[in-house]
């Protein structure tokens, strides 16, 4: 009797499936509790990986709820690669579709923010553009330039105060989040990812630049949406986050 790895895998992920026949204890008796060691290792290690990746989601719904939800998620979405630091990519969509959590509609965006922080942490190092190079460029050439961002940079645009929610759960003394939408920029100036909420219009500006718009066109889009768009403040966030690597004048 051979035990195929497909059968082994199926039983690992589905507690209702009995342990495969052909697995035994030293007396030749069917190994049920022994098989459960492997079952438990898989479930616990994947749950731990999700807890490490999504600490704010765990705090928002409570540790016990998080474990229960992780148990459902890991069976629907087992990892597709051995890089556990990136496990959980489908969690935002999973949370959006998970019926018992529909009363917390901001969870998917918070999960997206936590994913962005992980990716920023592990992203490639890139030398930032010195602010002097940027400031030295004549305005007409700047308006025609495109900006390339460091691989550490992520923009999360949400109808919910995701940065405020994140800070409320992770930082001592952070205020209760105000009900509002937020555009949050994730950067990594050195080794630790940073979060910054962009000024009104900043999300439109950065999103346009990320899509490859010229600087002038991105500025137009932002000021059209928000006439008092604060370019200086938004550039300040980008430079503080070492977010810009290249001014592309092609």
């Amino acid at each position, binding site marked *: 009797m051979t035990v195929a*790895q497909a059968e082994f895998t199926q039983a690992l992920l589905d507690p209702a499936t009995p342990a495969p026949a052909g*697995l035994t204890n030293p007396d030749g008796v069917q190994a049920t*509790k022994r098989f459960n060691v*492997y079952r438990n290792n898989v479930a616990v*290690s994947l749950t731990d990986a999700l807890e490490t990746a999504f600490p704010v989601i765990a705090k928002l719904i409570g540790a016990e709820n998080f474990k229960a939800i992780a148990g459902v998620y890991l069976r629907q979405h087992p990892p597709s690669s051995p890089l556990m630091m990136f496990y959980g990519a489908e969690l935002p969509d999973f949370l959006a579709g998970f019926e018992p959590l529909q009363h917390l509609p901001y969870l998917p965006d918070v999960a997206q923010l936590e994913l962005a922080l992980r990716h920023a942490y592990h992203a490639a190092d890139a030398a930032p553009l010195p602010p002097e190079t940027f400031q030295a460029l004549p305005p007409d050439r700047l308006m025609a330039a495109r900006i390339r961002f460091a691989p550490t940079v992520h923009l999360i645009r949400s109808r919910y105060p995701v940065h405020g929610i994140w800070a409320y759960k992770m930082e001592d003394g952070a205020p209760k989040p105000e009900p509002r939408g937020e555009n949050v920029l994730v950067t990594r100036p050195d*080794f630790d990812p940073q979060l910054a909420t962009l000024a009104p219009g900043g999300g439109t500006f950065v999103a346009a630049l990320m899509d490859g718009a010229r600087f002038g066109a991105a500025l137009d889009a932002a000021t059209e949406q928000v006439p008092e768009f604060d370019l200086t403040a938004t550039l300040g966030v980008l430079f503080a986050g070492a977010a810009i690597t290249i001014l592309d004048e092609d």
Partner: protein
Amino acid sequence: MLDATTPRFDRLPDAPGVGYKPQHFSDLLADPGAVSWLEIHAENYMGDGGRPLAQLRHLAERFPISVHGVGLSIGGEGALDADHLARLKHLIGWLQPASFSEHLAWSTHDSHFLNDLLPLPYTEATLARVCDHIDEVQEAVGRRMLLENPSTYLAFAESDLAEVDFLAEIAHRTGCGLLLDVNNVFVSATNQQTDAPGYIDAFPLHLVGEIHLGGHDEDADETGAPLLIDSHGREVVDPVWALYAHTIRRGGPKPTLIEWDTDVPDWPILRAEADRAAPVLQAALA
């Protein structure tokens, strides 16, 4: 002697090492004790940059590094994950570690990675498959690897080869070396009710390039038989230290790693565990 074109550390010393944890970075550099080399889990350093790789580059200037893979699924029925093999080749290429090792186990099925070291039946068919995979790995990374004996919790009725013979035959066919995890020997022998010193005595110790020591948890199965679980979450128990001393007396000094992966203690406690291996190794050198 060493110069800029020579990898600084081309082998692990016959001395204690530890599994590196990022929280120990500063304490380890300030006070390594007997710790003479470090092991990393390959998968944790397969990001593109940031602190993990910066720390690793820094450590690699001071310590020989062992790259220990936990995700290649060498025992898998399917083909090896080509993307993962390429990542491994990249890591080994730039880091030029003193050693590379992986497990006699599987962890991926049908593109699902299960994040555990799952057991194999010991048959001619699985032997041939594992050897093919090891040939492919050694070809890809361009170096000899070490293969680690597993902790097992159950047996396959279909197995018709002893684990020691299975590992020795893999080494013979592929030219790979072996990583002997003495705690795994103790855990498996207890769980399978076989003789741990007998396993060591039958093991081809001349092929062993590294030894692992770690902690385990104690449980029992539904028949009341002891069931030890390889948790890497506590000190190495005295019977495993005794089995280790037996191994070193027979096989001579070997690079010896303390693995502590869950409930990781503060640095002084881990360092003290590593320090315990030093006199055992020194006695064998005397």
